[in-house]
């Protein structure tokens, strides 16, 4: 519909190329660092591509030899999976009934808005009492204690997403099932939850990514391999006296892999989830 001069087309392609380089360059460099021999990374002038490709750091980090860098990394990887998994399941279990209730009975909605408003709270406003509380319960440096704390972030968020999902399921379908004699939970099982499955999956992925990404509470409430998560392990590596930058980069690549794969595969669902809040206002 619009006239396209060749000059304009060249300009657009140049901008697109620039954008692609800006996005990709840091990521490619992270990967290149992870496969470059240590000597190449400290050479001056810096050679941008390794003489010999070296994948050995991946084997080092994923090995389970006791007291090695790998054992510590694998332990934190498992902790991250457990914490994020438990917190995600718990958040969904709390969010689904609550979100459905608010979607079908708008008069109780104000309580949900109070829950969502807690998003504004900086974690530092809760950190000290949570520290005392976990310590009192013996849940400091414990994956389940950390998962419990993560509900402060995950539960409001998943409830909000699930509510907009339930809003788009016509209540007439549920009403029909109930007239046929199905109880509330049977109606959910047969009608509501299958229809809400895509929203549930998106909510679960978002929740998992949020927990995987979390750093502040993990830094405060974990202290050793029993509960330390990947983010804390990587911050330790980055701030410590590791002389091989390639090892830090490798840890980064491995920690980024799950969310990046989820991001690429689930792109459409994630983007519609990210933007629906924005477009609806």
């Amino acid at each position, binding site marked *: *519909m619009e006239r396209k001069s060749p000059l304009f087309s060249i300009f657009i392609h140049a901008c697109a190329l620039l954008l692609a380089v800006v996005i990709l360059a840091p990521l490619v460099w992270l990967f290149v660092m992870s496969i470059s021999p240590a000597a190449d990374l400290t050479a001056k002038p810096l050679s941008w591509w390794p003489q010999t490709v070296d994948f050995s750091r991946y084997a080092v980090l994923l090995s389970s030899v006791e007291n090695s860098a790998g054992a510590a990394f694998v332990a934190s990887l498992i902790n991250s999976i457990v914490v994020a998994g438990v917190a995600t399941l718990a958040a969904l279990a709390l969010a689904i009934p609550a979100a459905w209730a608010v979607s079908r009975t708008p008069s109780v909605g104000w309580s949900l808005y109070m829950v969502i408003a807690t998003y504004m709270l900086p974690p530092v406003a809760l950190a000290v*009492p949570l520290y005392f509380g976990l310590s009192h319960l013996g849940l400091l440096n414990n994956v389940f204690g950390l998962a419990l704390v993560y*509900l402060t972030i995950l539960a409001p968020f998943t409830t909000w997403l699930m509510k907009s999902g339930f809003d788009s399921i016509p209540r007439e379908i549920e009403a029909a099932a109930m007239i046929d004699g199905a109880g509330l939970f049977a109606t959910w099982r047969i009608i509501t939850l299958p229809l809400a499955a895509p929203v549930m999956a998106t909510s679960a992925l978002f929740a998992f990514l949020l927990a995987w990404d979390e*750093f502040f509470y993990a830094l405060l409430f974990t202290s050793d391999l029993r509960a330390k998560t990947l*983010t804390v392990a990587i911050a330790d590596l980055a701030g410590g006296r590791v002389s091989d930058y390639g090892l830090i980069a490798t840890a*980064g690549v491995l920690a*980024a892999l799950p969310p990046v794969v989820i991001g690429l595969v689930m792109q459409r669902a994630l983007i519609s989830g990210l933007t629906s809040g924005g*477009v609806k206002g």
Partner: protein
Amino acid sequence: MSGTSMTTRAWLLMLPLLAVMIAVIGWPLIDTIHLSFTDAKLVGTAGNFVGIDNYVKTITGSNFQRTLVTTAKFAIISVFAEMVLGVLAALLLNQEFRGRTMLRGLMILPWALPTVVNATLWRLIYNPEYGALNAALTQIGLLDAYRSWLGEPGTALASLIIADCWKNFPLVALIALAALQAVPRDIQAASLVDGAGPFARFRFVTLPYLAGPLMVALVLRTIEAFKVFDIIWVMTRGGPANSTRTLSILVYQEAFSFQRAGSGASLALIVTLLVAVLAAAYAALVRKTAGSNT
């Protein structure tokens, strides 16, 4: 089912969520308020009631004022840059060119990269001895000698802002792009027929569709930037010479490094109040923007 029993059932269904939220958010918040009026330490006995002493000391202290300015600088500059870059990238991605779908797919990568990994990556890029930025700038002749980007008070905050922008502008771009695609084709065509220039078309045809979603993105990004902790902790820990210390870092130091739970709590609540005021001001603005569109 009658209205009252519907309401009763709704409350029952919400009970588990509300109970957990009260346990992990409501009660800790009230306890933080209580602590902020005491001189409690992180370890040891409960503190004594000291009235508003903590608040007075915090607000009049030079640490707080300097940190507030640093936080505001970080939040305003990085969010502004993210908005501008995000909208420009969205306008580009809304054009037709080869590889557009792929480029759109790439935009999700910085968003998906964990914040701590992003901070670590940029810390390596800025490395004073072997970093890629120093190497690249020297090799193309823009820099004579390697610099310590994160180690000098003059460049540390700017370096952090660049790292934060790189991670966050693609999200703004994706939100803006979704909004752009909602602009009806016939209105675009009509404005073209009516002879509107590119700027007039952006201002009167495109911008009204962008305004709402962008306002929401602006609110969320500003609140997050004001609360920023992770990227700064990993890259500089608030240094050098406290030049990148933001409010959340200051609260962490006060409450956990110096173990002054009481005064840390008062500081945390001041931060909370600032974020709440910001959010309320924005909410009013969003309502105004939304109203002007309909």
